[in-house]
C-alpha cells in the first residue's frame, strides 16, 4: 500500500543541478606523484624556496603514513598514482589582469553556479560579497581587492600570498594543522595547489562577507586547496566557502586544509555550504571529501565559529575543530549534514579546552535519506589547565525512510574537575504523523518535507548570513526534491 514511506522515497530522489562540465582548455600535469611532481607544482607557481622545502618534508612524512580507517565511511582503494595533482585553465598563462581577460566560458560557468563575479552586479546588490573564485587549482579572479586593501585587509589566492606576503605565510602556515597532522592533511601539504588567504589587521572589522567558490572541473584531478585566515587582535571577519563539482562517473578526491588563527579579542566566523557531486542514485561517482579544518583561539577572548551545511559528496570526512588556548575564548560548531542515496558522512568537531573559562557549543543536525549513512563524531577535551571550562553539545538525527542510518560517537575527556560538559542527543524519524498533519491542512507532501527538514535545521541556519541561509534552504529543498505527480 502506498504509504508515506513510498512518498518520501520519491521526494528524496533528487537530481544534481550543477552537473555540467566546462570546455576550458587546461594545463594539466600527468597523473602520478613523486618529488618531481611536487617540484614542478612549486616551480609552476613560482614559489620561494621555503615553500618547496615544506612541501617536500610533508611528502616524505606522508610516504610513511597509512590511510586512516577508524571512521564509518567505506570506499574502494584510492590510487594516489592515478590522480593528476595540478590542473590550471590554460588561458591563465600570463594571468588575467581583469575580468575582461578571463575566459568567457569560465565566466559562464560561474554564472551557472550563481557566483556573482561581476563587480558591477555586486555593487548594485544590497550585500557586498567579495569572491575569490577557485577554478580547479588556480584562483581566477579576485574581486573587491582594492576596497579591502584600503583597510589593510589582504584577501587573495594562496599562491599570490606565498609570493607577495611570504613572511605571513611562513609564520602561520602549518601552525594550526601541521604537515604531520593526518594522512590527508599531509598529502595536502605536499601538493596543495591553491586556495584563499586572508589577513585582517588589528582592530579592523572586515566590512563585507568574504567568499570563495570552489569547483572541481577537470577529470581525474584531485583538488587540494589550502586556506589560511588570520584575524589579528580585535579583528573580525566572516567567511563563506561554497563548493560544487560537475557529475563524473569516477570518484574524485578532495583533500583540503583550512587553518584559522584568531588572536586576542578577534572573531572569525567560517561558514561552508558544500554541494560537491554526491554520486548518482546507485552510488556511482561522486567526490571523496577528506578535509581538515581547524581554528586556533590563540589569544584571550578570541572566538571562532564554524557553520557547515553539507549536502554533497559521496563521502564527507571532516571535523572542523577549535583549539581554545586563550582564556575566555569561545568555540562554536554548527552543522547540518544531509546524506541521500548512497552518500556517507562521518563529520563532527573537536573542541580542545586549554585556557581558563573557555566555552564551546556544538550543534549537529544529521539528516539521512535513501541508503545514506550519517555519523556524528565529536571530541570534547578539557585539559588540566582549563578551569571552569564549559561545553554544551546537542546532536540530533533525522531519518527519512527505513534504509538509512544515523550514528553518534561522542568522545568526552575531562581532566579538570571544575568543567561542565553537557551532551544531548536525539534520533527521530520524519514522522508519517508530521507529514500527514501538514497534508491534512492542504500543504503538499514536498512542501511539508521541506518545511519539516528546515525546521529541524533552524538552529544552524539562523547562524548563516541571511543570503546564504536562503541558499542553504534552497539547497536542502533541491536535495529533497522529487517528481510528485
Amino acid at each position, binding site marked *: *500500500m*502506498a*504509504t*508515506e514511506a513510498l512518498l518520501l522515497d520519491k521526494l528524496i530522489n533528487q537530481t544534481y543541478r550543477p552537473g555540467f562540465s566546462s570546455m576550458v582548455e587546461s594545463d594539466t600535469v600527468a597523473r602520478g606523484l613523486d618529488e618531481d611532481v611536487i617540484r614542478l607544482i612549486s616551480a609552476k607557481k613560482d614559489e620561494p624556496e621555503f615553500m618547496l622545502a615544506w612541501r617536500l618534508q610533508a611528502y616524505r612524512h606522508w610516504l610513511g603514513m597509512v590511510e586512516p580507517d577508524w571512521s564509518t565511511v567505506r570506499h574502494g582503494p584510492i590510487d594516489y598514482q592515478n590522480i593528476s595533482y595540478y590542473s590550471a585553465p590554460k588561458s591563465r598563462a600570463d594571468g588575467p589582469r581583469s575580468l575582461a581577460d578571463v575566459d568567457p566560458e569560465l565566466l559562464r560557468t560561474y554564472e551557472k553556479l550563481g557566483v556573482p563575479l561581476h563587480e558591477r552586479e555586486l555593487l548594485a546588490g544590497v550585500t557586498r560579497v567579495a569572491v575569490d573564485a577557485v577554478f580547479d587549482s588556480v584562483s581566477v579572479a579576485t574581486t573587491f581587492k582594492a576596497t579591502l586593501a584600503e583597510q589593510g585587509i589582504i584577501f587573495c589566492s594562496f599562491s599570490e600570498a606565498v609570493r607577495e606576503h611570504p613572511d605571513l605565510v611562513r609564520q602561520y602556515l602549518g601552525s594550526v594543522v601541521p604537515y604531520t597532522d593526518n594522512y590527508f592533511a599531509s598529502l595536502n601539504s605536499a601538493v596543495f595547489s591553491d586556495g584563499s588567504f586572508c589577513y585582517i589587521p588589528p582592530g579592523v572589522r572586515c566590512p563585507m562577507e568574504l567568499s570563495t567558490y570552489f569547483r572541481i572541473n577537470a577529470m581525474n584531478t584531485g583538488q587540494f586547496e589550502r586556506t589560511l585566515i588570520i584575524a589579528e587582535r580585535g579583528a573580525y571577519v566572516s567567511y563563506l566557502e561554497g563548493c560544487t563539482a560537475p557529475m563524473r562517473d569516477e570518484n574524485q578526491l578532495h583533500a583540503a586544509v583550512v587553518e584559522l588563527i584568531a588572536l586576542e579579542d578577534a572573531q572569525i566566523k567560517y561558514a561552508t555550504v558544500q554541494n560537491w557531486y554526491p554520486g548518482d542514485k546507485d552510488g556511482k561517482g561522486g567526490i571523496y571529501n577528506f578535509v581538515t579544518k581547524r581554528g586556533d583561539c590563540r589569544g584571550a577572548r578570541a572566538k571562532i565559529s564554524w557553520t557547515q551545511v553539507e549536502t554533497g559528496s559521496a563521502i564527507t570526512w571532516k571535523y572542523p575543530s577549535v583549539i581554545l588556548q586563550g582564556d575566555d575564548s569561545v568555540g562554536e560548531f554548527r552543522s547540518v549534514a544531509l546524506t541521500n542515496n548512497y552518500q556517507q558522512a562521518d563529520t563532527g568537531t573537536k573542541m580542545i579546552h586549554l585556557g581558563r573559562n573557555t566555552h564551546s557549543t556544538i550543534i549537529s543536525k544529521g539528516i539521512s535519506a535513501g541508503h545514506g549513512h550519517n555519523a556524528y563524531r565529536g571530541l570534547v577535551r578539557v585539559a588540566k589547565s582549563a578551569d571552569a571550562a564549559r561545553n554544551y553539545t546537542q546532536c540530533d538525527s533525522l531519518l527519512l525512510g527505513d534504509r538509512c542510518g544515523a550514528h553518534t560517537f561522542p568522545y568526552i575527556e575531562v581532566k579538570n574537575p571544575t568543567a561542565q560538559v553537557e551532551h544531548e542527543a536525539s534520533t527521530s524519524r520524519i*514522522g*508519517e*504523523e*508530521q507529514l*500527514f*498533519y*501538514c*497534508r*491534512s*491542512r*492542504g*500543504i*503538499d*507532501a514536498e*512542501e511539508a518535507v521541506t*518545511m*519539516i527538514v*528546515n*525546521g*529541524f*535545521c*533552524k*538552529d544552524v541556519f539562523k547562524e548563516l548570513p541571511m543570503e546564504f541561509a536562503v541558499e542553504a534552504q534552497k539547497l536542502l529543498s533541491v536535495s529533497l526534491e522529487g517528481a510528485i505527480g
Partner: protein
Amino acid sequence: MLEITNLNVCIDDGTTLRPILRGIDLLVRAGEVHAVMGPNGSGKSTLAQVLAGRESYTVTAGSVQYLGRNLFELPAEERAREGIFLAFQYPVEIPGVANIYLLKAALNAQRRHRGEAELDAMDFMALIRGQIGRLGMDEALLYRPVNQGFSGGEKKRNEILQMLVLEPRLAILDETDSGLDIDALKVVADGIEAMRSPERAIILVTHYQRLLDYIAPDRVHVLTEGRIALSGGPQLALELERRGYGWVEAEVADAARRVADNQYGIGP
C-alpha cells in the same frame, strides 16, 4: 455532503490485516452536526483519520462520496483544499516550524487551489488576531514551534484556531473535548458553534456527552466494534450518559441473538 456506504477498513500490522471498521453507513447533510460516540477502541478515530486521508489504513470495501466525488481518489492535501478539516486528537509537534508559518502555508495552499490571491503577512495577521482573541489564546503561541511545549488545552485551542482560519466545509473533530477543563471546553465549544452554518457540516467524535451540553447535535451515532450500533436524536447521548456503553453492547448482543434465534426457527 458526505455519504459513507458499507465502509470496511483494516490496519496492516505487518503480517495480517486487522479489521477496524466493519461496514459503516452514514449520511451527513450540509448544515448538520453529527456526534459519533463509542467506547475506546470502537473505531471512532480510525473513521475520522480515514476521512481525512490517512494512508496507513487499508480500505477493503465500501465507498465514500464527498460533494458528489469519490473521496478515495483524493490525496489528503486535496481533501483539505476541497474543504475537509480534521482536528487531531493528538496534535503533532513539528520542531523548528513556527505555528503561524504552518497556518499561513496551509491557508495560502488552500487559497491557491480556489484561485484566490495569497494573503500577505499584514492581511493574514489581521485575520488571525481576531480569532486568537475569541479563543483566549496567547499571541506568543503563534511564534512557538507547532504544538511543541503546548499544554493539552493549548493544543486543542490551536486546532480550533486552524479550523476557524481555514473555514472548512466539513469539519471532523476527533476527541477535541478530551483533556480540557471546563473553561477551555466552553471556549472550544463556542468556537465550534461559531462554525455552524447551513453550508457546513460538523462531525464530533467524542467519548463523553459533556461537549454535547454546549453543542446540540442533530444526530448521534454509537460505534461499537467497528459498526454503528445505534443512531438517534440528541436524547440518545443523554441515554448513553445515564446507562453507559455497556447498555448499547448488551442491546446489540440481544438483537444479534434474536436474529440468530430466528434463523434457527426457535422464535420468541
